[in-house]
C-alpha cells in the first residue's frame, strides 16, 4: 500500500493563519439562538449559493461546551468567513465568539436582529454581508496540500447485519492506508463500542491510554444504562443486529488495525497523524439528555475536532450530509445500494456478491483524495447540509489521553 500512498496526487487546500488548510471555502451563517434561526435560514436560502452553510445553536442558556464548539466550527479550516446572527437577548456570548473568529484572520460580521430592526432589515444586511464575504473568498487561491495535513472522521448510521462485514472493515482498510500516509483519522461513539473496550485498550500506544479507553467505555455504558436506552435503534434489529455488543463489534471494525494514538473529546484537534478515538459521552451524571440525539450531532463533533471530511457507513440507508465538511457515503448493504444508489458514493455491499474488501478500501481511499481535492460527494451535490448542536458538558482530557502530544 506504500506505493499507493506515494503516488497519490497532491490535494488542494485553502491556507489558514493557524497553519491548517481547508478543502472547502465555506461562508458559515450561524444563528446563536433558535429565535435567530429563521432569519439565518432566509439569508442562506436567498444567497442562492451552495457554499453558504447554515449552522447554529438553539438554546438560550449559556453553556461552555456549545461556545467552544461554535468557536471550533467557525474557525474550522473548511470555513472561510462567518456571519453571526443573534436575536439580542439570548445567553450566548456572541462577542467572545466574534473575537475568536476575527483573531483567526477570517472575515466575520455580527448582526443583532433587535438592533438591526427586525427580520427584513436583518435579512437584507445579511445578504449584503454574505455577498461581500463571497467576493473576498473568491480571490483566495488553493495551495498544494498533502495527506499528512488531512483529518478524516468516520461514523456509522442506520447500521444493519451487513455493516460489520462490508462497509465498516472497508473503511478500516482505508483508515490504515491514510494513517500510513500521515493523515489523522478519528472514530467515535464510545456508546457503540461497548463490548470492545478490552480489545481496543490493547491497541493503545501506552498502557495508561489503554486504561483511559476502558474507563471511557465504562462511562458510556453507565450513562446509557441511566438513560434507559443503549445506542441501538429499531432499524438495527430489522436489519439483523440483535444486541448492542454485536453492533459495537461491527462498528469497531471502522477503526482498522492501526495503533490507537489518543483519546480526544469534542473540539480537541489531533496533534499529528494517527488513529484517535473520540469520546462523545458527557462527563458526570446525565444532565442534558442522550449523548448525541442523532447521527448529525456526532458528525458535528467530528468536524469540531478538525475533520475535513467524513466517511459515513450505512446499511439501512442514510441520506444525510453535513454543513462545513463533505460526507462520503459507504453503503454496506447491496440491496440498499440498489434502492438508493443516487445517495451512495461507494457500494461496499458488493463484497457480499464476491468483490474484495481491499478493492472497496482502495475505492474509498481514492474518493477521499478526490473529494479532498474539490470533487463534491453525493450528499454534498444533493445539497445535504444537516447540522445539530445541543447542550453537553465535558471535563478536559487527562494527561494520559494524548501520550505523543
Amino acid at each position, binding site marked *: 500500500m506504500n506505493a499507493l500512498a506515494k503516488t497519490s496526487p497532491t490535494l488542494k487546500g485553502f491556507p489558514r493563519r493557524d497553519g491548517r488548510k481547508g478543502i472547502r471555502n465555506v461562508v458559515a451563517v450561524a444563528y446563536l439562538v433558535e429565535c435567530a434561526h429563521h432569519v439565518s435560514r432566509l439569508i442562506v436560502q436567498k444567497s442562492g449559493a451552495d457554499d453558504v452553510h447554515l449552522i447554529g445553536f438553539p438554546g438560550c442558556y449559556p453553556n461552555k461546551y456549545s461556545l467552544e464548539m461554535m468557536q471550533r466550527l467557525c474557525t474550522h479550516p473548511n470555513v472561510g468567513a462567518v456571519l453571526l446572527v443573534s436575536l439580542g437577548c439570548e445567553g450566548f456570548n456572541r462577542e467572545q465568539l466574534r473575537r475568536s473568529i476575527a483573531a483567526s484572520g477570517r472575515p466575520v460580521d455580527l448582526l443583532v436582529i433587535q438592533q438591526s430592526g427586525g427580520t427584513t432589515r436583518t435579512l437584507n444586511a445579511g445578504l449584503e454581508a454574505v455577498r461581500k464575504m463571497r467576493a473576498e473568498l473568491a480571490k483566495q487561491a488553493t495551495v498544494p496540500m498533502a495527506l499528512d495535513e488531512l483529518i478524516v472522521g468516520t461514523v456509522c448510521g442506520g447500521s444493519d*447485519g451487513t455493516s460489520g462485514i462490508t462497509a465498516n472493515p472497508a473503511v478500516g482498510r482505508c483508515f490504515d492506508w491514510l494513517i500510513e500516509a500521515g493523515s489523522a483519522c478519528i472514530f467515535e461513539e464510545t456508546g457503540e463500542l461497548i463490548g470492545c473496550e478490552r480489545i481496543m485498550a490493547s491497541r493503545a500506544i501506552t498502557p495508561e491510554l489503554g486504561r483511559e479507553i476502558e474507563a471511557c467505555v465504562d462511562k458510556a455504558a453507565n450513562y446509557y444504562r441511566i438513560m434507559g436506552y443503549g445506542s441501538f435503534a*429499531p432499524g438495527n434489529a430489522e436489519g439483523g443486529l*440483535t444486541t448492542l455488543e454485536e453492533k459495537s463489534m461491527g462498528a469497531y471494525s471502522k477503526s482498522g488495525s492501526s495503533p490507537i494514538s489518543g483519546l480526544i473529546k469534542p473540539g480537541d484537534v489531533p496533534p499529528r497523524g494517527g488513529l484517535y478515538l473520540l469520546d462523545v459521552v458527557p462527563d458526570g451524571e446525565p444532565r442534558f439528555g442522550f449523548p448525541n440525539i442523532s447521527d448529525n450531532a456526532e458528525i458535528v463533533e467530528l468536524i469540531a475536532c478538525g475533520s475535513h471530511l467524513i466517511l459515513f457507513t450505512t446499511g439501512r440507508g442514510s441520506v444525510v450530509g453535513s454543513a462545513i465538511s463533505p460526507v462520503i457515503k459507504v453503503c454496506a448493504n447491496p440491496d440498499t445500494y440498489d434502492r438508493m444508489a443516487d445517495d451512495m458514493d461507494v457500494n461496499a455491499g*458488493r463484497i*457480499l456478491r464476491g468483490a474484495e474488501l481491499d478493492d472497496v478500501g482502495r475505492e474509498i481511499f481514492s474518493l477521499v483524495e478526490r473529494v479532498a481535492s474539490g470533487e463534491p460527494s453525493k450528499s454534498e451535490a444533493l445539497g445535504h447540509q444537516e447540522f445539530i448542536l445541543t447542550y453537553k458538558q465535558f471535563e478536559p482530557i487527562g494527561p494520559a489521553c494524548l501520550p505523543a502530544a
Partner: protein
Amino acid sequence: METGPKNAEKLPPLLLLHPDDNILVARRDIAAGERVEVDGESFSMPAAVELGHKLARRALAADTRVLKYGAPIGSMKVAVGRGEHVHLHNLRSDYLPSTSREITDTH
C-alpha cells in the same frame, strides 16, 4: 470489480466470519426449505432468513455465549437447533437490552 448477480448466485449463501463462531450470517435472503451447506453437511433451512441476519451453526443450549467475529455478542435465552434464526426472540445482550419502537413505562 462489480460482480454480477449470476456470479453471486454461485457464492455460498451463508458466511462464517470467524472459525470460533457458533452463528452464520446470511449473505442474501434465503428461503425456507432452501438447501444450504454448513460445515460440510447439507440441510434444509427450517425458516426464511433475510440478508444480514444470523442463524445457528449448530444446536445451541440456553445461556450459550454467542460468538460473531470471534467475539461474544450475547447469550442464548432459550435453546435452538441448527439453522434456526438467532435474533431478539432468543438472544439477549450481556450489556444493555435492545430497543424496539414500543415505548415502555420506564421511557
